[in-house]
């Protein structure tokens, strides 16, 4: 772990950034692997593979984001999907009603969701442990039921695009590719930010809060500010993912947008891969999604998939608390130098 001296003046941010990147090739290797995987459908032109990778990239975003608040900071956000839905709705509304360009709409939506997280985070992050988890469920349900009654957002029916909506993007088909590039870009960005946060002084502060909030405060960390920034970060990327997902779908409804089930699946991925690691949520998302699609398509297991997902989660929680990456790091200490 890098130490930070208090007395010597800290080097400029860019130099520090460069030093981190040189010190840990892990980030570059990870990003290159992800990018290489993401480019396969671009060259083969396979739409089905693209769909599968789109979903995986989205899950990587959701899992890595929730890992910032849950894995680094120790605050279990059960309802983090609220930002996904909110981002989706805001962007959809802007695109449909004001014909805002998709990229701009997604950015505005993500900033909106982060501001919502900042405002909401200040009071609810004072709650600890189970109370915080319950509050996030409450927030998600409150927003979901609100949106389901909110007429400008289409109420319980939701909103949908006409086909002309995709014309500025070169038609529906190329809009699908645009959405794919966008989600891959956001996934890479999320992973990079997740890594940089973990390696930064800010991340160190978050982990100190996770281990012992009171002690962290005594050491000069402002827990309220650290936590709320982490929360806003964990809202930003899911909101982008929501904007892209529903842009691609062309239809948005309150149920699928604020699905608590998907939120908790995100937690399962983080646990499966390894809580508080950078690689964990990626591994978890990919493994979980592969497993789920295998179970759903296999004739023997298709109806059992929910049961098996539950059983798997229980086994991880009871026996492999550190997750796959965490377990590997414990088992092979040499990996700790290379795998974050």
């Amino acid at each position, binding site marked *: 772990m890098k130490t930070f001296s208090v007395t010597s003046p800290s080097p400029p941010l860019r130099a520090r950034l460069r030093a981190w990147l040189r010190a840990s090739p892990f980030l570059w290797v990870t990003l290159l692997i992800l990018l290489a995987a993401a480019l396969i459908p671009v060259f083969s032109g396979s739409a089905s593979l693209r769909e599968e990778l789109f979903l995986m990239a989205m899950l990587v975003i959701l899992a890595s984001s929730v890992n910032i608040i*849950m894995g680094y900071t*120790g605050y*279990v956000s*059960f309802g983090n999907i609220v930002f996904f839905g909110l981002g989706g709705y805001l962007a959809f509304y802007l695109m449909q009603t004001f014909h805002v360009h998709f990229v701009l709409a997604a950015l505005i939506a993500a900033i909106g969701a982060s501001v919502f997280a900042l405002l909401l985070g200040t*009071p*609810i992050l*004072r*709650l600890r*442990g*189970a*109370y915080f*988890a*319950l*509050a996030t*469920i*409450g*927030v998600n*349900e*409150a927003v979901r*039921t*609100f949106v*389901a*009654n909110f007429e400008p957002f289409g*109420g*319980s029916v939701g909103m949908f695009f006409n086909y002309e909506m995709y014309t500025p993007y070169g038609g529906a088909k190329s809009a699908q590719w645009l959405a794919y590039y966008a989600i891959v870009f956001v996934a890479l960005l999320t992973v990079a930010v997740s890594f940089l946060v973990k390696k930064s002084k800010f991340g160190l502060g978050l982990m100190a809060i996770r281990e012992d909030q009171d002690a962290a405060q005594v050491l000069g960390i402002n827990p309220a500010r650290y936590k709320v920034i982490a929360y806003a970060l964990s809202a930003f990327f899911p909101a982008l993912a929501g904007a892209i997902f529903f842009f691609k779908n062309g239809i948005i409804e309150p149920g699928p947008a604020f699905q608590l089930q998907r939120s*908790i699946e995100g*937690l*399962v991925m983080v*646990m499966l891969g390894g809580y508080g690691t950078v690689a964990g949520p990626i591994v978890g998302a990919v493994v979980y999604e592969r497993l789920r699609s295998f179970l759903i398509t296999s004739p023997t297991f298709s*109806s*059992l*998939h*929910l*049961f*098996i*997902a*539950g*059983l*798997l*989660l*229980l086994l991880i*929680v*009871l026996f492999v*608390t550190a997750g796959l990456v965490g377990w590997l790091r414990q088992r092979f200490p040499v990996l700790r130098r290379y795998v974050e």
Partner: protein
Amino acid sequence: MNIEALIASSIDGLMLGFIYGLAAMGLTLIFGVMKVINLAHGPVIALGMFTVYLLSHQWGLNPYLGLLLALLFGLAVGVVIYFVAVHRVINAPELTTLLATFSVNLMIIGLGTIVFTTTPRALDVNLGALRSGNISVLGTRVVAVLIAILVTAGLYYFLYRTRVGKSIRAVANNRAAAELMGINTSAMLALSFGIGTMLAVISGGLLSTLFSFTILSGGVYELKSFVIVVLGGLGNPTGALLGGIVLGLLEGVTTLYIPIGWVPVIEYIVFVLILMVRPAGLLGGAK
């Protein structure tokens, strides 16, 4: 707005509130004794619905007799869930127990969807209605409330007047000290989990005599239970019953004045606000 409609929906809401309160008491009992938030509460409520339904449909048993059997079944299910999912991680951080009970939730819903599918079922129970002027109250609701009161009284008698009940309270108070006094804490924890689950099953059984349901219906009541428990203070059974009544009344009365879709919005906003302002609950002691 006429006064009769107001009285009628207040009574309706009040009665439902008792049944909500029963489910919430189960949740709060488990939390009070072992600081575990049981995310498998909803599916267990649904199991209660289906147990009563199956006993009545397959065996032709009277639903209220079926409820007695369901009660034992609930106790057993709770003890099993405790030993399978909770016992090993009882001292772990909240995240672990939340995820462990959530995994039980997934398993019950997963198996339940296969066995029962998601087609809505309904029990056909008709006990007539009590009438006074334009206000009428369904017999099934009256019986449900009576049973809810009876169960609550039973629970209190058990917790405060029996030796086992006192042991459970001792474990809730201080597990280590209780252990030193020769109480088998594992057994008490398992029993509390069983009783909490049993309360959920009874509440589900009673709900099945009032409304149609599917295996997924428990989720709605689980969320209501969270709201109630927070209203009444986590870990406080009396608070849960009162919270249930408050929520039931609120639901009954607000539907008269605002579109029904907005009622849950208000419920959840109240829930979050109470958590922010008074996490110990409106009725909970100062913390």
